[in-house]
């Protein structure tokens, strides 16, 4: 890799950041749309089928014509896909209300903190272990330089990511407090208690890959765990258990069903974001879905084999000479990410919400002992090998 000047590093970093942002802003709306459809089909209905639009304007004229002919409006060919554009427009155009008794500064800061913590994580995630493509030589400033599959290659990236995740709790707690209202405060406290409790088993379950791979770097861990380099074949079992525990805790960390008590609508109106509207609410929404993507990236990178085809260190059975399945690829990584995102929706459509005491029981009485045993087994395997 050619050495880069500081300007080139900066510009390259900015390009990569914009690329990741575009990825997030494409994936999140599509994810919300997928949520409607997947849950719809699981519950034997069609979900969003049409964006009929109004009766005015160009689409309105088309729609009226279609209805007049006794057909479903033209936009429904896309199976309701434009709904996600309508969703975004609604969030952006809605009036932004700050309650009179709210703490204005903190009220504004809270969604920003949430989104900042959620987006910041991506700077340490490696989407691909090597060079994705090289800029052509004539390109201004960054000509001839490689575009890597990661923004920064920090050697303690795992700790950085866990640290930022805990900063993300502030957004929720502060937003809840600043609303100066009962239900948000209750929701915020629930959320904080829940996230703080589940952070323990989450971090402990991530220690299993750390112990087995002997690294804290996302890229290195992912590669070593997938190929099982320097690991006993027994390591597959703690990895499998770790994957189940990690995804469970990940669901709790992102406040998704069955752990969505902070926004239990039948008890708390809408939980911590009751008083929020417009794009401030949109930011919380964005942060939640971005966190889902982050959890999926983690589960994919550490447990499901990341850039390689087979999960849990089983990739060693496919020699690197096999043309497609033996090589690391972006397709495998994102395929796994999408699978876990789908699991999120699947679980949401299937499982009912926990009661609060059950939630705490699951966290403290079952998950933490389980992770400790799992970690012990992993350490034994590492030690014996």
């Amino acid at each position, binding site marked *: 890799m050619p050495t880069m*000047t*500081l*300007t080139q590093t*900066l510009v390259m970093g900015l390009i990569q950041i914009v690329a990741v942002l575009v990825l997030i802003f494409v994936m999140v709306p599509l994810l919300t749309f997928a949520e409607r459809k997947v849950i719809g089909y699981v519950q034997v209905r069609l979900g969003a089928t049409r964006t009929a639009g109004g009766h005015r304007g160009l689409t309105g004229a088309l729609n009226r014509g279609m209805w007049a002919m006794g057909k479903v409006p033209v936009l429904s060919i896309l199976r309701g896909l434009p709904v996600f554009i309508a969703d975004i427009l609604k969030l952006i155009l809605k009036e932004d209300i700050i309650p009179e008794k709210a*703490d204005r*500064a*903190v009220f504004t*800061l809270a969604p920003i903190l949430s989104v900042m913590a959620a987006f910041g994580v991506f700077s340490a995630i490696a989407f691909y272990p090597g060079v994705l493509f090289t800029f052509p030589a004539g390109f201004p400033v960054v000509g001839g330089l490689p575009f890597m599959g990661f923004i920064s290659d*920090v*050697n*303690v990236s795992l*700790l*950085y990511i*866990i*640290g*930022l*995740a*805990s*900063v993300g*709790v*502030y957004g929720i*707690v*502060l937003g809840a*407090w*600043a609303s100066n209202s009962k239900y948000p*405060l209750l929701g915020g*406290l629930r959320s*904080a208690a829940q996230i*703080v409790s589940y952070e323990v088993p989450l971090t402990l379950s991530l220690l299993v890959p750390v112990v087995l791979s002997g690294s*804290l770097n996302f890229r290195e861990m992912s590669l070593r765990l997938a190929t099982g380099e320097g690991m006993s074949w027994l390591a597959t079992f703690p990895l499998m258990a770790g994957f189940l525990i990690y995804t469970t805790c990940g669901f709790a960390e992102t406040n998704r069903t069955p752990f969505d008590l902070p926004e239990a609508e039948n008890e708390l109106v809408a939980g911590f974001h009751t008083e929020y509207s417009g794009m401030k609410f949109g930011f919380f929404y964005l942060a939640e879905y971005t966190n889902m993507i982050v959890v999926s990236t983690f589960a994919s990178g550490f447990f499901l084999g990341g850039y390689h085809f087979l999960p849990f260190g089983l990739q060693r059975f496919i020699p690197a000479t096999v043309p497609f399945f033996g090589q690391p690829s972006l397709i495998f990584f994102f395929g796994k990410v999408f699978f876990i995102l789908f699991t999120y929706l699947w679980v949401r459509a299937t499982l009912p919400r926990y009661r609060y005491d059950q939630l705490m029981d699951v966290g403290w009485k079952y998950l933490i002992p389980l992770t400790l045993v799992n970690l012990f087994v992993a350490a034994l395997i590492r030690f014996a090998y």
Partner: protein
Amino acid sequence: MEHLLETLGRNMFGIFGLLALAGAAFMVTARSAVHSVLAFLFTMLCVAGCFLSLEAEFLGVAQILVYAGGIVVLFLFVVMLVEISKFKQKARLEVFQNQSRVAIVAVLAGVAAFAGVFRNAIFGKASPDALVLRPELARGLDVAKQNAQAVSRGLFADYLLPFEILSVILLVALVGAVVLAKSERV
């Protein structure tokens, strides 16, 4: 552009340090306890930035993880649940309470002690070697690349006993806090 970036990079430590000081000042003077906590969070993140600018990545990230993440969440809990009602009872809150004279003396003593300890480190000649606990333990380690390993050798090989004693002290503090909190209810 290149020159500007280089200057900026060289002064990153100073920039983060000043920001941390500003955050700390705001934390002390803020009227609302939650604003204080926010300023404290900002200060901790800036201190983490200081560590990162010195290439101590592990320390910087541990700073975020432990202080910004863990401790301040608990702090926030306490502030939200306990302190607010007390604050509202007082009509007017002095920024500097009446113990300010004692505080000034304590701060001066602290500054003197700090200067005594770090005089050499700040004003003396820069050491050619990195500051390591026992150099022979760090041999064969690229400290800039293997932060975590270097710190863990210090903690778990060199200073194991003080480290364990420290954790017992923390446990004592934890038990003490539980006892104090419980006694209020009786």
